[in-house]
């Protein structure tokens, strides 16, 4: 089996007495959507932040394509190909959709300290940006300021930006949150297409989407992974049913 794109070993993080992340290990393989589910307070956000580089773990390591990411901050990891979307949409509100995606493309290019030429005439960046915008199905809205976008469109904008980073993997934090059924289905189809480009580590609450789209599911409870497997395996797992899916199972 090929080496996983993202490999997380024994990650641990405590805040005082609270053990937010408890010896977490999981991996992300090429072409897959690996969903991370768990009840509120399970520590999903903290885990994502340790992977993206916003928080440093107390113990354990994160490897991208075999290379350890220890000591590399969020910006460095983004340049290494880790594309992230946020639980609460995080975009540049005054920039248009196009400018936001250009920014991402610029970040990926590594050449930010250019002072002379106007960026909005940069043919290379423009092409990349427009491509990513059309892949995220936002073409008609390229010149709309991000603050004026509808909620679902802002989610798609983040995906477009993630695409512009020439990602090795996607780290998506509840992209379906706040989406109606139609929007969620469309976004799900988009993610399905994206997995060919780069694997997706998907944190989600929307169980329909999770079970429809994922190849594997990991369940996080109180900072610990209690089960990893295919959606069917997880659905059948007694402990998961008890702890998470509750009486509905």
């Amino acid at each position, binding site marked *: 089996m090929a080496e996983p794109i993202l490999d997380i070993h024994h990650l641990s993080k405590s805040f005082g007495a609270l053990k937010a992340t408890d010896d977490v290990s999981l991996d992300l393989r090429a072409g897959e959507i690996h969903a991370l589910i768990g009840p509120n307070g399970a520590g999903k956000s903290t885990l994502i932040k340790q992977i993206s580089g916003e928080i440093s773990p107390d113990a354990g390591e994160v490897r991208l394509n075999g290379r350890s990411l220890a000591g590399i901050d969020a*910006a460095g990891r983004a*340049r290494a190909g880790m594309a992230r979307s*946020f639980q609460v949409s995080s975009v*540049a509100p005054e920039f248009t959709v196009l*400018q936001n995606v250009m920014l991402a493309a610029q970040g990926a290019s590594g050449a930010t300290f250019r*002072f002379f030429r*106007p960026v909005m005439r940069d043919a290379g960046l423009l092409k990349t940006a427009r491509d990513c915008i059309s892949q995220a199905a936002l073409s008609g809205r390229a010149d709309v300021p991000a603050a004026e976008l509808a909620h679902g469109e802002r989610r798609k904008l983040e995906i477009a930006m993630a695409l512009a980073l020439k990602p090795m993997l996607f780290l998506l934090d509840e992209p379906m949150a706040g989406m109606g059924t139609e929007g969620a289905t469309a976004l799900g189809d988009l993610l399905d297409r994206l997995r060919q480009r780069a694997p997706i580590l998907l944190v989600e609450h929307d169980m329909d989407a999770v079970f429809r789209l994922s190849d594997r599911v990991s369940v996080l409870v109180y900072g610990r992974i209690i089960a990893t497997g295919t959606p069917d395996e997880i659905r059948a797992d007694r402990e998961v049913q008890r702890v998470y899916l509750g009486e509905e199972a």
Partner: protein
Amino acid sequence: MSAVEITAPGRRAGRMGRAQIVNVALALGLVGFGLGAWATGETFLITLATKVAILGIAGAGLNLVLGFGGLVSFGHAAYFGLGGYASGILAHHALNYTPMFEWPFVFEGSTSMPVIWITAMLVGALAALLIGALSLRTTGVYFIMITLAFGQMIFYFAISWPAYGGEDGLPIYVRNGFPGLNTLDPIQFFGLACAVLFAVLGVTAMLVRSRFGLALQAARQNRQRLMAVGIRPGGVLLVAFVISGAITALAGALYADLNRFVSPSMLSWHLSGELLVFLILGGTGRLFAPLAGAGLYIVLEHLLGGVSDHWQFFFGLMLLGVVLFARGGVIGFLAGGKRNG
């Protein structure tokens, strides 16, 4: 230009057109006013116009980090004053025939503006590098207070260091020279100041439209997002801070020459506050805000000052009103469009 205005040309032509018209009008207004004063022999008014131009340059420096970068620097007078002292000290040594230093070569100061300007900009840039590197470790209110404190530090140093006048300041007996011009002629000095102003505004526009400018404006709007696309906000902001320090120092050198005098008051926090006031009067984040704001301020100072000794009281009320109710400043009012900051 605001963030909206740097979209591809042709888009939002209406809005971009209006802002550009306002900008051109402001530029013509300044030049026209100076020429008109010259034609009518009102030397004092030429000097006033020159003051507007120079303060506009100082404001343009601050605008880069504040209007576009979102950094509330409350210590920019430091760079203004350092530029002024660069001018004063170089001229002082040249005119007194006392060398500034003798190693590695004898340097006797200078009364040539190009030399002085370059020196001033280097000094401003270096100071901004040091202050910025320390201050940018903090954000929010800490950043504001720290920049204020560093400005004060330099202010108190200038007061207590006796070699260059201390509290009394340092006169520049003869205005420094610029090749090809008679800088003592008010209209020629005005023309020079205007040329520098428009050059600085042009450079600012170029920077804002560049890749660097895109990252800078993103740093203002959402640092988390900037990190997430692989760009470290700290580096971008520091570079902007250094450039800003150089520009404001250049203004300081010109100001010292205008008044033929440099004093610690150029380093005071009141001046730092006034620079902030220019920008909000003009409209933070608008390219020509420094010119509009400085112009409005000087006009008000002149007009209101003629009416009452206590004009600052009324100015304070007016400023309060602007902050609370008219946030977009002059340019926001005239040109419309999305506000920044």
